[in-house]
């Protein structure tokens, strides 16, 4: 089991260990390109358009001879496309897509283990256990509340009243919370898992909390960013979502505040992997190497406070705090093996 938070604190240790592994036969070293690689690769990604575009541009500045064909869609669509195409993979690389999804692909034996150059810089909590890893994380995203301030005031509350999950149970908020459906949204799922982890996954306490939250929920929708956008446009008061869309709306001028719950956030990461197929395109490896380079990380970092090297700067909502500390301890193995039953239980209680 990986209890993430503990590991990141042991960063130096793992760094050393990884460094040794890398140089003693993991093979990553052989794959560092000696001559410029060229060709055309297909990359599936769930990274937001704005970001993905800039990243590919920067990549191409270094590798003008590699054409990157990008399929950009939601995590769900990307994953199901990959699964549906399993018989004859169309993608060379899956980039910036939920690790929980990649674990599904891993279970289907669709990922080719690959250790990208610079893997040693990645915190252990952000990569697959196996060696070489089947997937490598780049950024994490985490549960956040996006709160529409004028609407909140209209209810007689201030932003200081919304600090943590339990504040969402306030009677004033009845019918004023939108949450993503965990069955169709990765954010919805990580939030539900986060609540189960925080309130106790082995007792019923997590579900009992959600029962009470359910009383206040206006609607469950099929999109993770949707609740943030709805809070931004005043369609709801509190959108349970993740940081990025909330902060984006805030910067665009929406009257919202982004709240990271005090007890910590459920989270997932966007990770990269090589798709298993008969012939691996060398350019795919070039891309994956670059995708965890400092340069790429810096661009991820503009939008995501948490990057997998753990070297984020100062961020809105995380003043004086390392954003990584916001992430709760989380057991991916437990989640992966209980995904179906969690969703079935959620569906039984709140679906339809």
């Amino acid at each position, binding site marked *: 089991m990986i209890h993430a938070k503990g590991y990141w604190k042991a960063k130096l240790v793992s760094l050393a260990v990884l460094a040794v592994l890398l140089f003693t036969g993991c093979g990553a070293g052989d794959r560092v390109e000696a001559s410029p690689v060229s060709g055309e690769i*297909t*990359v599936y990604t769930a990274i*937001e*358009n*704005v970001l*993905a*575009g800039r990243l*590919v541009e920067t990549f191409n500045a270094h590798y003008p001879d590699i054409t990157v*064909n*990008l*399929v*950009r*869609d*939601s995590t*769900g*669509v990307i*994953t*199901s*496309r990959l*699964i*549906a*195409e399993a*018989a*004859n993979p*169309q993608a060379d690389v899956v980039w910036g897509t939920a690790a929980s999804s990649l674990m*599904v692909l891993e279970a289907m034996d669709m990922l080719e283990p690959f250790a990208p150059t610079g893997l040693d810089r990645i915190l252990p909590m952000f990569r697959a256990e196996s060696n070489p890893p089947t997937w490598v994380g780049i950024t994490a995203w985490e549960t956040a509340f996006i709160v529409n301030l004028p*609407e909140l005031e209209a209810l007689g509350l201030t932003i200081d009243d919304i600090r943590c999950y339990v504040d969402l149970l306030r009677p004033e908020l009845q019918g004023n919370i939108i949450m993503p*459906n965990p*069955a*169709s*949204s990765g954010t919805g799922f990580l939030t539900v898992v986060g609540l189960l982890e925080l309130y106790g996954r082995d007792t019923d306490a997590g579900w009992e909390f959600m029962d009470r939250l359910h009383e206040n929920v*206006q*609607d*469950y*929708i*099929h*999109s993770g*960013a*949707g609740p*943030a*956008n709805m809070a*931004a*446009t*005043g*369609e*709801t008061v509190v959108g349970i979502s993740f940081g990025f*869309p909330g902060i*984006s*709306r805030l910067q*665009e*001028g*929406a*009257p919202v505040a982004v709240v990271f719950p005090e007890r910590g956030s459920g989270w997932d990461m966007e990770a990269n992997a090589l798709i298993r197929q008969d012939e691996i395109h060398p350019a795919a490896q070039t891309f994956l190497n670059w995708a965890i380079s400092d340069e790429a990380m810096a661009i991820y970092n503009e939008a995501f406070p948490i990057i997998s090297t753990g070297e984020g700067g100062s961020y809105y909502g995380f003043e004086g705090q390392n954003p990584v500390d916001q992430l709760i301890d989380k057991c991916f193995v437990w989640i992966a093996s209980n995904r*179906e039953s969690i*969703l079935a239980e959620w*569906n*039984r209680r*709140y*679906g*339809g």
Partner: protein
Amino acid sequence: MRGKSKGQFLLLCLMLAAFVIIMVLPLFALFARAFQDNTGQFVGMANYRAYFANPALSRALWNTINVSLVTTVFSVTLGFLYAYALTRTNIRFKRFFRYMALIPIFIPTIVHAVGLISLFGRQGLITQMGFDIEIFGFIGITLSHIIFTFPQAFLMFFVTLEYADGRLYEAAESMGVKPLTKLFKITLPEIKFTLINAAFVCFTLAFTDFGAPVVIGGGYNVLATDLFVQITGLFNFNMGAVVGTLLLIPAILAFIVNRVTNIANMGAMSAKSTKLKVKKSLARDIFFFAFCSLIVLFFLTLIGALAVRAFTTFFPFNMTPTLGNFQFSPVTGGVGSFFNSVRMSLITATVGTAFVFVYAYVAEKTDGFEFLRKIAKLFSVLPLALPGMVIGVSYIFFFNNPNNPFNFAFGTVGILVMANILSFFSVPYLTIMGALKKLDREFESVSDSMSAPRWKLFTMVTVPLSLPAILETFMYYFVSSMVTISAIVFLYTPRFRVASIAISHMHAEGVFAQAAAMSLLILLVNVVVRLIYEITIHLIKKRRKQA
């Protein structure tokens, strides 16, 4: 067998084979999964039992039926009244009203839902005026569907009422029949088939649409969102296939009640008889004028809301006018995705029109082969009931198989074109069929007697005479391909991104202003295409009259 039959037989077989490849086999590839577990083992009806044992899932079925029924009742009623106003009253601006009624089919359904939110959401224009309705959920889905299906119902009634036999009414008039009796004894029997067909079309469209419920449906689950959740959320393709089969319920129902033949025969209505002279009635005209104005006003408000979003910096918080929203992020495909859409729609329209035309031609005009032609006609109405997503997923399973000889098409524009051609096949088929039925049945005989090959007759007579129907089909394919999302969301290729998908991405990412701007571009190009169509038809008619 006579020699000429061989060519016709081959063509008929070719058309059927094409349909088997673009519809039957892919569907089979998908639906086989409804009876398998995720390891591919045959499990019989187990998935269905699991589906109906889960109340949260099976409720989606009833929700869908509920939404579709209400949509049907409203769309058919409103569509009929609107068509009635334009054919049986003396209101002014009929041409304006006719074009305005088509607005909803020029933009993706997802945009209707967004428009509704800006009117009826918490911050909505109408909500702010004090009318608060719970737009997320049943009402929102149903309203979106009514908006989208209304033009279809209207068009069907319009054609029927326009070509109705005025002499019947004159005869009734001379016998002193009361207006209400006229309605029940003449008008209703006259539109009976259209009524049934319009109801079927509206029901099916509402039953299978995905764009609106995903945006405005909230927790109100319908089959289309269920399919989406099963496939993209749970990666459960087997259950997805189960939902997919349930989405075919309207089609199956149609076969059971034998509506199919009626729909196929609808095209047989032809221009005949004398045109109806509309009597004077001020009260009636005022009522209908108000009715039509109200509907148009509603549509214009939706477009207005879209325009406001598109031309302001950040609605509703920063209302500074800007054109910046038309500078699309290059990653959504940028403005390139818009041109890709136009390109894809042009290809779809060109290939699709040719395919539908030849298909309808062999189904209608060949001699003999009754059985094959019946199958061809049966195939032709099925796509109407196929949700775009079902087509998309089944295409992945079928075409993305290295052993499939058609594998090369996967990952190309070709697959998008194919999905679109299939998705929107039925309506153009009926249009072309109607046009072909109006042609003299003896053209073929005359041409045979002159030893002219059929293709010569086809190119020199059949095609030129069907030009209006061909143009209409072309336009329909173009407009539909411009706005479709669900048919291609699983199929669009990295090298070729399209505008409608970009809109759904922009919406999901909260870039509403760019989504609105892109929707306006789509609306604009569709309106332009429609205008070109109207002008061309006008010119053709004028030339024929002069000639």
